[in-house]
Structures are given as structure tokens and as C-alpha cells.
């Protein structure tokens, strides 16, 4: 009887984490999409750098960013890339200040890609571009204005970073696939651990930041603290990020993950029921409840995932990172 229970427990557990599958079927294709979209944005900017021309490729690139923004290790951490691409949450209002300063000074760095790569990360990337394209005080610039050159410089810089990211991943995937035989990943388990940590941190980021920041407190909701609200992206970012995380979960586990699948389906269902792209409903008591429920479901999802995948693969979130002392 005891043996039977043990055998059943083994059958019910997902097999060893599929690091190779996660890299080949999730990470690399999504990094490639990001690079292609960044290239398209830069090309479009070289033809026409006005806001109406750049909004569509900006939106496409942001979609692609949601496919990789959870991969906060290795290449995305090189040269501060993650924040240089997406400087959010911007708790000190640095994007607004930096963009305003660049424009006021007509900073000549926009004419030189190398010099622009040295500009503060708060003045580069998707959030600086969002200001230029969607902030009504800025977005009506003409083709000859400084802002147009700045938009072009940001677009080119994004493309440069995406190219570097893609090149670095080509090398870095080898380190993960050969984990245990190099000094970056000291054992096979460490590569699986890196992906698992990225997953769990990604879920936590969506719960605490993408949903938690606009929710604020009941007495003090913060609709303008939602991610990329000017470009109507807050809810879309939640959904796209969850879909990307689900894809990573699926590739990481060789066996069916029914509990995780059901939990994802449930969360995405709740999100689909929200007709509120900006999550502006945080200020309305009845609408707010729906957003709180979405946040609670992400919280439950974390528990389900930790139990089904983390538990079976012997992975946990950081022993020290979670401790806090």
C-alpha cells in the first residue's frame, strides 16, 4: 500500500524541468519577436518620427516586451537592459523629468547612438517613448522638432538593445543547457531554478505592481500609477504577461499540469471579463472589486504553481530572497 502510494505520487509529478524546451520554445522565439518588432519601430521612425506614425509599432513592440519582461536574469540584466527597455515602476517620476530635461536642453546625444546609450535609463526605452507619443503636452510635435529626433533616438536605441539581447541569448542559452559544466550555472538544477524564479517573480510582479500599484488602498486608489496607462496598456499588459508565463510553465513541465492550467484559465477568464483597458475602475467601488478579484486570483495562481510545479520539481523561491532579515 505504501509502495502504491509512492508510485502514484511519482506518476502524478511532472518530469524534470524542461530547460531546453523552455529555451527553444519560449525564450528564444520571444526574444526574436522582440528584436524584430524593435527593428520595425526603428525603421518606421527613420521614415516618419511623428507620434501618429509610431504609435502602432510602439504598441507591437510593447506586446513583444510583455513576452520577455519576466526573463530578469542573464542577458536582460546585462548593462541594465531590463530597466533601460522598460523603466517601470517609476516611483520617483524620473521618466517625466528626464524626458523634459532632454527636450529643454535639446540634448545633442540624440544625434549619436553611442552618446544616447549613455543617457539616463529613465530617458530611454518604452516609457520615454510613451511620453512622446501619448502625453498630450508633447505628442503633437512636428517632423522638424527636437522631440521627433528624440523619438527616433529612443527607437534606434531600443533596436540596438534588442539586437544585443538577442546576440547575448544565443551564447547564454548554451550556459543554461550545459548547466553544471560552467561557472554560471553550477548544477543542472540551477538553470531550472533560474527559470522557475523568473516565473514566480513574474507572477508576483503582476500581482504587486501591475495590479497592486493602481489599486493602492481603498481610500487612495492610484489609477495613474498603472503601467503605461497613457497608451491604454494596463490590462493588456496583465493579460499578455500571464499568457507568456503560462507558455513558460507549459514548456518547463514535461507532464500535464492540470492545476496550473485551470488556475491560469480562471485568471485569464476574470481578466477577459474586465472592460477597462486602463484599470481606471480602481476608483469606482464596484469596478474596483473586479480588479481586486483579479489580483486575488493571481495570488491563488502562485500557490497552485508552487504546489504543482515547484513542489514536484523540488524548486522553491529563494531561501534568502524570501526571508528578509
Amino acid at each position: 500500500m505504501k509502495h502504491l502510494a509512492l508510485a502514484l505520487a511519482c506518476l502524478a509529478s511532472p518530469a524534470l524541468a524542461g530547460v531546453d524546451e523552455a529555451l527553444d520554445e519560449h525564450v528564444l522565439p520571444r526574444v526574436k519577436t522582440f528584436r524584430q518588432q524593435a527593428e520595425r519601430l526603428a525603421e518606421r521612425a527613420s521614415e516618419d518620427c511623428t507620434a501618429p506614425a509610431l504609435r502602432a509599432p510602439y504598441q507591437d513592440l510593447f506586446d513583444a516586451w510583455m513576452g520577455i519582461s519576466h526573463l530578469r536574469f542573464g542577458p536582460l540584466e546585462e548593462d541594465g537592459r531590463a530597466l533601460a527597455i522598460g523603466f517601470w515602476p517609476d516611483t520617483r517620476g524620473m521618466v517625466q523629468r528626464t524626458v523634459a530635461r532632454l527636450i529643454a536642453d535639446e540634448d545633442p546625444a540624440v544625434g549619436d547612438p553611442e552618446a544616447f546609450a549613455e543617457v539616463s535609463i529613465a530617458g530611454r526605452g518604452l516609457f520615454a517613448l510613451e511620453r512622446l507619443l501619448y502625453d498630450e503636452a508633447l505628442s503633437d510635435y512636428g517632423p522638424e522638432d527636437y522631440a521627433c529626433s528624440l523619438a527616433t533616438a529612443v527607437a534606434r536605441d531600443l533596436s540596438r538593445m534588442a539586437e544585443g539581447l538577442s546576440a547575448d541569448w544565443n551564447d547564454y542559452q548554451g550556459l543554461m543547457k550545459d548547466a553544471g559544466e560552467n561557472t554560471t550555472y553550477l548544477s543542472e538544477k540551477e538553470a531550472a531554478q533560474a527559470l522557475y524564479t523568473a516565473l514566480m517573480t513574474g507572477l508576483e510582479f503582476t500581482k504587486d505592481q501591475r495590479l497592486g500599484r493602481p489599486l493602492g488602498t481603498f481610500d487612495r486608489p492610484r489609477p495613474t500609477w498603472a503601467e503605461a496607462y497613457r497608451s491604454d496598456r494596463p490590462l493588456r499588459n496583465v493579460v499578455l504577461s500571464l499568457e507568456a508565463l503560462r507558455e513558460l510553465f507549459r514548456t518547463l513541465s514535461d507532464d500535464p499540469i492540470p492545476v496550473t492550467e485551470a488556475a491560469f484559465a480562471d485568471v485569464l477568464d476574470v481578466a477577459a471579463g474586465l472592460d477597462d483597458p486602463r484599470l481606471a475602475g480602481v476608483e469606482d467601488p464596484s469596478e474596483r472589486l473586479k480588479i481586486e478579484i483579479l489580483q486575488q486570483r493571481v495570488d491563488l495562481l502562485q500557490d497552485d504553481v508552487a504546489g504543482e510545479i515547484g513542489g514536484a520539481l523540488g524548486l522553491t523561491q529563494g531561501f534568502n530572497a524570501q526571508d528578509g532579515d
Partner: protein
Amino acid sequence: MQRRRFLSAMLASASLPAAGWAAAGDPAYLAAARTASGAFELFLLDETGDDIFSIPLPDRGHAAAAHPVMAEAVAFARRPGTFALVIDCLRGKLIRELEAPEGRHFYGHGVFIAGGDVLCTPENAYESGEGRIGLWSRSEGWRRIGEIPSHGTGPHDIRRLPGDILVVANGGIRTHPDAGREKLNIDTMQPNLSYLTEQGELLDQVTLPDDLHQNSIRHLALGPDGTVAFAMQWQGEVTDGVPLLGLHRRGAPVQLADLPLSEAIAMKGYAGSVAFDGAGDRVAITSPRGGRVQIFGNDGRHLETIRRSDVCGAAPSTAGFLFSDGMGGLLELGEQLRPLQSRPGRAWDNHVVSLRNATT
């Protein structure tokens, strides 16, 4: 008083043959860990990170205080624990369990003064919220001989400077065991770095600028010239990117060590450990949450970033630094980063204590 204590410490050691650290296999480090079987143990490690032996702990550990001469260490429970275990590191046996007095709990750190006869333990007098330093006499069978004020709230780490001057990191955060680790005074917290005599007299106190009052001063390391390095934990937004390392010498202003913006934000407002390197030229802070070690010159200038998941423990080594992580890794940074050990399944706890550089 100090002299008498010192003599009695020597006497005590004379009665136990060959009980110095050399007899215990000359361990280089002490570190607590959760083992692959889920048990908690205190490990004695040699210079290469190899196990010399380990001693079971009843619960998750935090840091340890090494006796300056005798092969004895005191392992502390993580806060709000009330146990501290005095361990014979030669025989791997428990000498005594210290129990925090009624109304007090430990913070996970401690230090020896008086030539090793008096153990000082930061404690929370949690009904009033005042920080205390408990004093325990080794020669009197580990009797509690008194306590002195820490001159702040939430005293966490403590170190000994020459002349038995104590330097205490008063983290500023009030907690009560009934509320677990819940922070009760974030809006009004006032951390400080206090220098005290053994009698509890305040010699010097350093505070942070007003806009950094939520930066909890938590862990300490001493440089060879008496510089105190302190690592902080920010209680505001994790993405604020505030400085997490301070350097101080008595009589001089505090110097806060800046990082490039992306690295500052990537630390997630959290430094877990701080250490000088073996030569005293560099200072490291670790962030398990950010998966990073930041290396600074002893002048506070940022030198480099090392990325390593769940890294937390940091200690001086002969070559430079030793770092430990929650994935069973021990890494040494000399000129370059070099893995020493990988033991998947073993999770090294927050701190590594260097025995070679324990009381400088």
C-alpha cells in the same frame, strides 16, 4: 573589571586542553544552512568551503558569534527567536542553550568582548520596544550578568571595536512577537548606528538624512582601519534605488555609497550582508532579492557587480571575499569570481562568519 574577566577567561581555557580553533581543524568559516533533508545545521567550513563538520540546530539559524580564542561559537535563531546555542566546535556538542529573558528576544547576532568572556546579544524589549544588549558571562557558566541600552529600536547586528567599544546597528523598526515580523512604526522609524561602552554609555551616534529615515541600518562589517561598513534595508518602494551601503569612521561624516541607477534599482531596496575583503580594500553588499553582489572600494566607489541568484552570505577570505547562496553555492572573489563548492539541495543561510577575521 575587564582584566579580571580576561584572566578568568584564560583560566577557563586552561582547564580545557587543546580547545582552540586550531584543534577544531582550523575552520575558516561558520555558516548555518538548511540541508537537503530539510534539517537545519551549523557548518564549520575550511578555506575551500569543504565541510569540517556540522552541528544540528533546532530551527532555522541566522548568524553566529565566534569566540576569539576557544573553539566555541554561539548560533542564534533567526528573529524573533529566543534561543542561542553555545556550541563546542571541537567536539560538536552543545555546551549550553541560552534563553532570552522574559520579554526579550534575540535578533540573530552577537559578539564577544572582554577577551571572550562576555557575550553581547542585541535584543528587543518588546513591550516598550526599546533595544537592549544582553550580557552573558562565559566564565560564570553563561550566566546573564546584565543588559545595557542599545540607544535605539531594533538592534540587529553588533561588532566590537578595539578597546571593547561596541558598535550597534539599530535598525529602527519596532516589532512585537505577537505580530510576528510585522513592522509597527514604518512612518516614524529612526535607525541609527551607535557606539557604546560595555557599561552602555553612548559615545557616538550616527543617523541618516531625513529622506532616508526608512533605510533600516541592519548589518555591519569592520575594516582594518576601524571603518564601519553598514548595510541597509529600504522600507519604502522597492524600486526607489536608494543607497544601501554606508561607511563611517568615528568623528567623520557618514558616506553613502552610490550605484549606477539600474544597479541601484535592481538591488530591490535590500542588502542582506556586508563584508570587507581579506585585505580591507573592498566592501561588498549582497542582495538575494536582486540576485546581486555589489563591490565597492573602501572609499565607497562602485567597482563591479556580480550576479548570482539568492546570494546572501558574505565574508572576507584570504583571496578576497567568500559568498554563499540559497542554492548550495560557495563562491570566492579574488581577482575573478571562482566557484568553490556546489551542493544542490543545501541552502546557505543569510550569513557566513569568518573565523580568521572574526575580531579585528
